[in-house]
């Protein structure tokens, strides 16, 4: 695929061929009996990153995280953290701490003792422990709750204790398993930003497992999308959203309209595709490496499509249909349009003005169009 | 065993012990144990498994091998009162004498057959009665309000913690000719002659049902308490009357509880000894009591062992079913 987007290589270590990755996962496979949970995954993660493993349930993301923590051993493959092979290192000797999905707070210990537990295992001096626990309590704003036991805390407070307990040992890597999964929606949004702030403040490398795409988008420096034990795409949130490399990723992140078609013209700077589903020639301003006649898919995000009553100029990327359904969401409206080809397309438009009388309505004939740069060709 | 065999065997043992004591034998043993444990796939945490495992192997499983072995021996007046199966003959061959006479004896004497079948009958009927009494109790407990539930549960468990023997004994005072029931009935003039209840099959049924009732109630209660009430609400919402909802929802879902409870009553009841011994009459034949008498009264260990094997053969399937159930419950708990 041709380079279609420019990125700033100076700021992003993953685009710098000379940068050394902090965590190297090499050809890791994990099998449970006949079931392959993680299938030949290789992944480099750099220092200070907030990396998200994103995928549906059973995609292997949690198994991968547990292998990093040392609770599972890879069937095949190696994991290096800061250039040390983790193969023979037990969980209790790894420079890695984990925040569990269930928080896994020790029910019989106070907040203070929960946080101090890890430091006590390292036989730190008592004064040092007291100081660091106090600092941590400060950081997660739980100082008044130091003497409480876990069952005396609310969900959000427990989440912060779990975070503090995992961070207090200053691990090289912090693993977070669905860190916001147990919180309600509003609290989750607040906590997302808090988590990013804490990551920036402490400088610890975070690896977050989540199934929530919006969470992954807001939190991470990069996302690794997993499916059936494999990493199907790695990239920044923008890359993943705007340039998905497969129908799976395009469909998994956000919503998308996909038209099946055949390549009829493939030049370095553009590609032209014929699609019965779209009902018009599709023109995309980046080249692909495929032979003419190959079957491909073109993905267009709903918000990238324009609706208009008048026919726009040109033939490419321009089709017609009838509005079938309208869902008013407040900030935007979702239109479902049935194209004349029978294909249903989803279009979103922001409601910029209040109470317009000139809105598109049910059963209206409507033209759909998008720019050549707003669609992506997918080979799989 | 012949003298010659003794001597050769003795020599070998001496030689072997010498060898061991010459080497640093303790280290040797440690290495062996380690090799053995590693062979068995045990390291570190493996010891956690190994200790209870070996204990149960030695004191629970292996003893059955001895029961089997002695059931094939002959009774003699000696200490211990049975013959050896394996003997060293003059020319150092091993002579194995298997004696199935004990089993033939059990088959021929209809006393054993009667006891065997009667035990099954008594256990089956008692299980049914326990279910009949226990199910409504467990059901009402599970449907009672939560504050009451714990009190009722405690009331079911309390007798279980008091002496089983003494609770059986209590029935003697109630059932005997000048016992509580007869005294009351006589005092009210309902009967003129005391009803004979002690030393009858009836007394045995009462004793077994009474003693094992908590074993029926507890698994049933645990099952019924878990039943999601919204299922019944959904059934009612869909137009199902309460009685019908009970038979089409509650009862089918409580089958695991019924099976677990029934097995917990049936299996031990088959081999019950104390209850028939205290409440039953001389003609109340139950196989557990027969075993006891063979062992303690007749001192015929081989026949007692053969009886034990016969009971085990009968119970092996129910016991395995029970284990499958327990394992499933445990798995469900984990998930």
């Amino acid at each position, binding site marked *: 695929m041709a380079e279609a987007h420019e990125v700033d290589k100076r700021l992003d270590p993953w685009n710098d061929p000379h940068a050394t990755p902090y965590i190297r996962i090499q050809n890791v496979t994990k099998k449970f009996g006949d079931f392959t949970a993680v299938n030949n995954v290789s992944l480099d993660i750099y220092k200070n990153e907030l990396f998200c493993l994103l995928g549906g349930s059973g995609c292997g993301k949690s198994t991968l995280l547990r292998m990093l923590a040392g609770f599972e051993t890879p069937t095949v493959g190696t994991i290096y953290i800061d250039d040390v092979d983790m193969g023979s290192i037990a969980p209790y000797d790894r420079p890695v701490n984990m925040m569990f999905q269930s928080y896994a707070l020790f029910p019989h210990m106070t907040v203070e003792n929960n946080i101090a537990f890890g430091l006590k*295992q390292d036989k730190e001096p008592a004064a040092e422990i007291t100081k660091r626990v106090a600092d941590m309590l400060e950081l997660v704003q739980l100082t008044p709750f130091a003497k409480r036991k876990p069952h005396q805390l609310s969900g959000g407070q427990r989440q912060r204790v779990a975070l503090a307990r995992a961070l207090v040992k200053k691990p090289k890597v912090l693993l977070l398993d669905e860190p916001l999964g147990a919180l309600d929606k509003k609290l989750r949004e607040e906590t997302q930003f808090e988590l990013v702030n804490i990551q920036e403040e402490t400088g610890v490398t975070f690896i977050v497992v989540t199934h929530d795409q919006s969470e992954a988008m807001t939190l991470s420096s990069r996302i690794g999308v997993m499916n059936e034990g494999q990493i199907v795409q790695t990239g920044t949130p923008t890359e993943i959203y705007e340039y998905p490399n497969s129908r799976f990723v395009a469909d998994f992140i956000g919503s998308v309209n996909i038209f099946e078609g055949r390549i009829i013209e493939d030049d370095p700077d553009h590609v032209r595709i014929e699609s019965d589903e779209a009902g018009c020639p599709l023109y995309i301003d980046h080249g692909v490496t495929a032979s003419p006649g190959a079957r491909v898919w073109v993905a267009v995000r709903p918000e990238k499509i324009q609706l208009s009553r008048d026919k726009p100029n040109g033939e490419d990327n321009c089709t017609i249909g009838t509005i079938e359904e309208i869902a008013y969401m407040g900030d935007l409206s979702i239109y479902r349009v049935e194209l004349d080809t029978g294909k249903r397309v989803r279009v979103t438009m922001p409601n910029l003005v209040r109470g317009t009388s000139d809105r598109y309505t049910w059963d209206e004939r409507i033209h759909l169009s998008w720019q050549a740069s707003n669609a992506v060709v997918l080979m799989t | 065993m012949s003298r010659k065999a003794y001597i050769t065997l003795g020599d070998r043992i001496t030689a072997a012990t010498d060898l061991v004591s010459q080497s640093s034998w303790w280290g040797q043993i440690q290495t062996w144990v380690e090799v053995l444990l590693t062979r068995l796939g045990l390291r570190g945490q493996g010891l956690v*498994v190994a200790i209870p495992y070996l204990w149960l192997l030695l004191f*629970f499983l292996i003893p059955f091998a001895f029961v089997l072995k002695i059931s094939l021996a002959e009774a003699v007046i000696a200490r211990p009162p049975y013959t050896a199966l394996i003997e060293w003959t003059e020319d150092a061959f091993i002579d194995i004498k298997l004696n199935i006479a004990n089993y033939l004896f059990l088959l021929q004497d209809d006393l054993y057959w009667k006891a065997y079948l009667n035990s099954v009958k008594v256990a089956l009927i008692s299980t049914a009665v326990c279910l009949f009494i226990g199910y409504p109790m467990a059901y009402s407990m599970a449907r009672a309000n939560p504050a009451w539930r714990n009190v009722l549960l405690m009331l079911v468990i309390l007798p279980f913690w008091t002496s089983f023997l003494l609770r059986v004994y209590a029935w003697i005072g109630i059932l*005997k000719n000048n016992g509580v029931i007869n005294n009351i009935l006589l005092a009210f003039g309902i009967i003129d002659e005391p009803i004979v209840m002690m030393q009858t099959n009836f007394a045995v049924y009462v004793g077994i049902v009474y003693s094992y009732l908590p074993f029926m109630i507890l698994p049933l209660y645990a099952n019924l308490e878990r039943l999601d009430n919204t299922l019944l609400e959904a059934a009612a919402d869909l137009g199902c009357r309460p009685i019908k909802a009970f038979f089409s929802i509650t009862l089918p879902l409580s089958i695991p509880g019924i099976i677990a409870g029934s097995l917990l009553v049936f299996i031990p009841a088959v081999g019950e000894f104390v209850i028939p011994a205290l409440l039953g009459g001389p003609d109340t034949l139950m196989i557990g009591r027969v075993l006891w008498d063979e062992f303690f009264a007749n001192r015929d260990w081989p026949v007692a062992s053969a009886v034990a094997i016969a009971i085990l053969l009968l119970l092996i399937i129910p016991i395995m079913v029970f284990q499958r159930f327990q394992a499933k419950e445990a798995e469900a708990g984990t998930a």
Partner: protein
Amino acid sequence: MNKNRSMFLISGLAFGFAFLYIPILSLIIFSFNESKLVTVWAGFSTKWYGELLRNEQILDAAWLSIRIAVINACFAVALGTLAGFALARLGRFRGRTLLTGMVTAPLVMPEVITGLSLLLLFVAMQDLIGWPAGRGVTTITIAHITFSMAYVAIIIQSRLSSVDESVEEAALDLGARPAKVFFLITLPIIAPALISGWLLSFTMSLDDLVIASFVSGPGSSTLPMVVFSKVRLGVSPEINALATIIVLLVAVGITIAGITLNRQEKRRQRDMQMAVAANE
């Protein structure tokens, strides 16, 4: 709620509990009977309690039984905890099925069979290695540990299954070695189960007649064995007195346990409400 139906349920419950408790009540009432005939009332008296306390044979047997029960309970809890831990936490190790079998079978195995098989083992062991020398307290204790530990294992296993395994993983992750995790995290969390396992083992040992009869030797008659030999000959008011004392002890114990549990539960709920309120 249907009135007939709840009446039916309540009467079922009442009948059931009457059936469970009337025998126990009658034991208690007649323990205060003046007459030796036990069931023929002849006035209130506590003389049988005095007789009981002067009965050397019963007192000795009781003391022996209590000693065995205490040792048994301690060993059974230790071994049963290991077994329960292995079953709940160590995944699919080799021989797991057999261990599960050996842990569940003693719960239902008829006592006469367990008793006989253990006796034959002890006799054979004495022949082979000279230990245990004869039958007595040691053999009774071993026998009791064997079936008690099975109960403990089941209790511990089910308790551990309900404890989130990631709590232990968190401790590992924070640098504690497995043995330390067990003592610092696992044991405190399952402490209530350990206590109930101990008490259950104690009670069952104290209660066992059949197995002890098989594996006991001369001079090691436990309390149930003495009681059995007495009640076989008919009712005896001293035994009623003994039963009353046992029932009383158990009832007091269970009531205290129940009240404590109830209180803890209430405090827990209050704490939780407080936490929710504090958060808003």
